[in-house]
């Protein structure tokens, strides 16, 4: 994981339900264990990162969660106001622009603005300097929203670069976009499952990253793998059509074996697709833990080392 260690900005993306937050938390713990100062950020109002890290809920201000790990919740309205205050440099003007009831609906209605406010704040923390000089954080982990492809958010700075005329907003979007595209500074971690749909979508996502977006794919994390219990020959035997007597207790095991054989085949085929993708891959086992917390994260962080 040498290259992950040197990145300033890591964008963690993946479809809902693949364990994205769990992987983000585990990455944070793993990086912190190697001495990096990590900031985890979440765009989700009901974020689980804090729970996974054994800390109180994230707040709109940066808080230390545990040794070498900080966290912040990215709230669009708060982030936008902060950004405005930074640029306008006048409290009265900031207040006139953002606190007026006349502009409130307007900002909420400009598509893409909320996304930029959140992403821009995370980016700002990635380049932020500590009071004594040097970077405040070594790595910013961005737990992206679980939208269809998680790409909408990544596209926003590029859209700004393309449509907004030169000015502060455009300048910042350009700097952020340049950083996101630089493989020495930033990377995308795609979290997925070895199942049909997630694997196919990951293939499409990786194509978009390498092609249309030009963003560096750092890792593919394949989560929740079951251990193959049967050989392909045995799976074939289990999957032969047959009728089973419901009342024979042993048949429950055979029925279970049938399900397992199908699952293993799906997993194998999906893994083959994922293994054909460029870039490094991390494969994590299913931990049979539906309500993961700090212990799960500690275990996965160990595996991510």
């Amino acid at each position, binding site marked *: 994981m040498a290259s992950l260690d040197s990145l300033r900005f890591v964008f963690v993306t993946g479809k*809902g339900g693949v364990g994205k937050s769990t992987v983000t938390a585990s990455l944070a713990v793993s990086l912190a264990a190697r001495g990096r100062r990590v900031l985890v950020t979440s765009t989700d109002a009901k974020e689980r990162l804090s729970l996974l890290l054994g800390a109180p809920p994230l707040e709109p201000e940066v808080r230390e969660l545990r040794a070498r790990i900080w966290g912040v919740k990215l709230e669009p309205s708060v982030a936008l106001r902060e950004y405005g205050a930074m640029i306008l440099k006048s409290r009265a003007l900031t207040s006139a622009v953002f606190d007026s009831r006349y502009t409130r609906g307007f900002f909420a209605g400009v598509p893409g603005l909320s996304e930029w406010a959140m992403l821009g704040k995370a980016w700002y923390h990635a380049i932020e300097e500590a009071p004594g000089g040097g970077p405040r954080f070594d790595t910013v982990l961005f737990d992206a929203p679980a939208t269809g492809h998680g790409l909408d958010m990544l596209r926003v700075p590029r859209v700004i670069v393309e449509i907004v005329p030169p000015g502060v907003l455009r300048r910042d979007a350009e700097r952020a976009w340049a950083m996101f595209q630089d493989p020495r500074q930033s990377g995308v971690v795609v979290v997925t499952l070895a199942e049909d749909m997630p694997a196919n979508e990951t293939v499409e996502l990786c194509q978009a990253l390498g092609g249309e977006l030009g963003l560096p794919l750092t890792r593919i994390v394949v989560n929740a793998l079951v251990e193959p219990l049967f050989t392909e020959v045995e799976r074939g035997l289990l999957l032969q059509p047959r009728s089973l007597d419901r009342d024979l207790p042993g048949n429950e095991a055979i029925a*279970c074996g049938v399900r397992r054989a199908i699952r293993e085949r799906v997993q194998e*085929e999906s893994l083959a697709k994922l293994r054909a993708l460029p870039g490094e891959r991390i494969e994590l086992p299913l931990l049979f833990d539906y309500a993961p917390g700090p212990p799960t994260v500690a275990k996965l962080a160990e595996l991510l080392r």
Partner: protein
Amino acid sequence: MPRRVAAGQLFLAAGPAGARIGRIPSGSLAPPCYAPRAVSRPTLEPLIAKRRVILCVGCGGVGKTTIAAAIALAAARQGKRVLCMTIDPARRLANSLGLERMATEETTVPRELFAAAGLEVAGELTVVMLDTKRTFDDLVTRHASNAAARDRILSNRLYRYISTTLAGTQEYMAMEKLLAVQSEGRFDLVVLDTPPTSNALDFLDAPDRMVGALDSAAMRWFIEAFQSTGRLSLNLVARSVSVVLRGIGRLTGGGFLEQMAELITELDDLFGGFRARAHAVAAAFRSPEFAYVVVTTPAPAALREAEFFAERLREQGMSTDALVVNRVHRRPRAQPSDAEVGTALAAAGIALGEGGVARLQRALHEEESLASADTASLASLERSIGADRATIRVDVPALPGDVHDLGTLAGISTLVGG
């Protein structure tokens, strides 16, 4: 008559030998390993019978598209002319309906396909994928006062980005399209698979956000400052207003305000129509013809989102009409001894290699673990949403693979929609 399929059988997807790797063999629900057992459990049948629109909501990755298709198929089997609108290309689902892919043109599933799968479909099933840009374009075309105004908007650079690239537009357009389709009366029922937003509520707020932006004073100022001269002139507005606009201008770079003002002024022509439309969309949410089906899995994160959504519907005086819990792991029916497993293997003529019995036992044990976790997290759901007796609750068992064929989809549709 299609056979009624019990929930348990969905687990028992056995197929012909040599089935392609990774594929649940076609017709995996028939013949089932176990003989069919008649079960009576609640389904969404009452909603299908009485409502005009069924909205499937839930966070991403819970199988919303599949559940929406299953509901639509159930409705078609019950004689309805039904339209299933999806947001994703959902190629697998298209394939399972015998289609190449979900298209942005309406496609009616051919009768022969149903017949080939042994399904009796009295109604008609049409599927379509939402085309955000085209829906937006249609809206502009419909409300523009003349062709020149329409063309100016459609070719505006900012408009092109707003209508295609940016997040947030999709949610609104899904509702817009829904209303447009519904008003035509070609379908008895529309089933909508809502966009996979990180927050299932986003789409509910979309019309309000749109109206809010249209009605905001800032929008009016832009028009006022721009309209008469064709250039953005801050001298035309009150001083306090120009301070705010200049402030925004410093954030965005000056030229951007002109671009915004230009688009907003063009759009002004449409505002009346837009606003009325957005109000109609917002009102439609509360119509008794709409049913809300919250789709979730037993995973705590998905359940939290489901509970949050139900809570939000309640606040707004609406109700969660049904709760579909997808991918529920079933507890094994028996815990056979090693000897019993050995006997069963011999009787079935399955010759597994060394340690086969132990490995089957381990597979059973792992299923048991998953089932226990599901049971625990669903207990809390029962306490919150489940307490509302008006909510129909349907559990759909976890399948070992994806839904690839009409047979499997029909199995789910029976469970969900009767």
